[in-house]
């Protein structure tokens, strides 16, 4: 109980608790990562062997239109699941946007 309370307090104290998404580093994710960087100037891109982890304070938005611009074809945001390793944050998924955010914070 007390631990859960502590977490809740921490979260309210830091309303911009970081969210992240980790993708495999491959040819399919290059345009996705570029799109995320362009749409989320506050995001921090960390490159690991075989993986790219993107941290963002509080909110991370992935836009279908931005990815389509870079891949030069129609893109379904669900295609991203093929290369998705992990993520943190509450997820709001529509056809056009894939949003990670701590809403309850």
């Amino acid at each position, binding site marked *: 109980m007390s631990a859960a309370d502590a977490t809740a307090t921490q979260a309210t104290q830091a309303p911009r608790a970081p969210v992240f998404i980790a993708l495999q*580093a491959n*040819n399919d994710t*290059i*345009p996705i990562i570029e799109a995320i960087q362009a749409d989320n100037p506050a995001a921090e891109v960390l490159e*690991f*062997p075989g993986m790219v982890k993107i941290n963002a304070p509080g909110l991370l938005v992935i836009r279908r239109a931005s990815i389509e611009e870079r*891949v*030069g*074809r129609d893109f379904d945001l669900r295609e991203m699941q093929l290369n998705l390793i992990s993520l943190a944050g509450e997820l709001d998924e529509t056809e056009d946007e894939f949003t990670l955010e701590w809403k309850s914070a």
Partner: protein
Amino acid sequence: MTVEIRVQSVKPLRQTFGHIARRFGDKPATRYQEGTYDLQSTVNHHYKPLWDPEHDIYDQRRTAIVMADWYALKDPRQYYYGSWTIARSKQQEAADRQMEFAEKRDLLRQLPGELQAALQRAILPLRHYEWGANTNLCFVSAYGYGTALTQAASMATMDRLGMAQHVSRIGLLLDGNSGASLAEVKRLWLDDPAWQGLRRQMEAIFVGRDPIETFVAQALVADALVYDLCLRRFEPLWTASQGAGVATLLDFPLRWQEETNRWVDSVVKTMAAESEANRQTLQGWVDGARARWSAALAPLAAAVLGDAAGAAALAEADAALGARLTKLGLKASASNLNQGAAA
């Protein structure tokens, strides 16, 4: 005992090839970039082509268009061999389904006789048009400059053979796989007065020497007019009374063209934006080809739809091309045929 697992990370010395890094910086490159940019050799050609001693084997002087960097003509679809074959195989599966659907229900042979004859006369000779387009794009691929343009042209050549097959299969559905319709269609292409203008213009492109002029005449002007007229404006002939059966078979080429137009438009737009001289050269080629092809298509439109409806359909196709040209930085001045029709 504690076990410590440490991650050993080896940082690669370089992320991509040197020539790609010089263009885009040393970061992971896409396969399209690695499979396209600066692939064609530019210097140290070992052999002068004996069949064309004025030029090198790859030579920018073969065309009147001047580009500081021919790799500016990138393909917005980013097709390299792998992505192109995957995309096409998916489309082929979908097209096969449509064919199967039509075959199982015998859609075409249930059409009234005169509509079957109209399909044979108005659509099937396009298999010869597609073969011609294949030849023209081969020329662009062989004599164009820079892999960005020539590889996309090369893929387009195969697209056109595929499209010729698609049209031929419609013929086989019509004649119950006997092939009789295809023999008849060759006769139409060679002898039917309605098709002779088209054949003449196609052969006129064959003898052109400038690869970009060939590209503009074939991929921009002729395709826009022929596809729009034959596949879109002729369609109500069958669908008005017989439902969408024929339309399902004509849909695939139209959707292929929508996709390919993105490439054609991007190439022409980039060349026109490069310099005023380029823009004027392109405008001249487009205006000439547009007037000639519109005139060549007039007898076909009239033969299929009747005089008045044919002229109207052709005018609509021409207007659609005009609207497209304005988006490419070219003028959409109506072709001579339209002025003639309006007067």
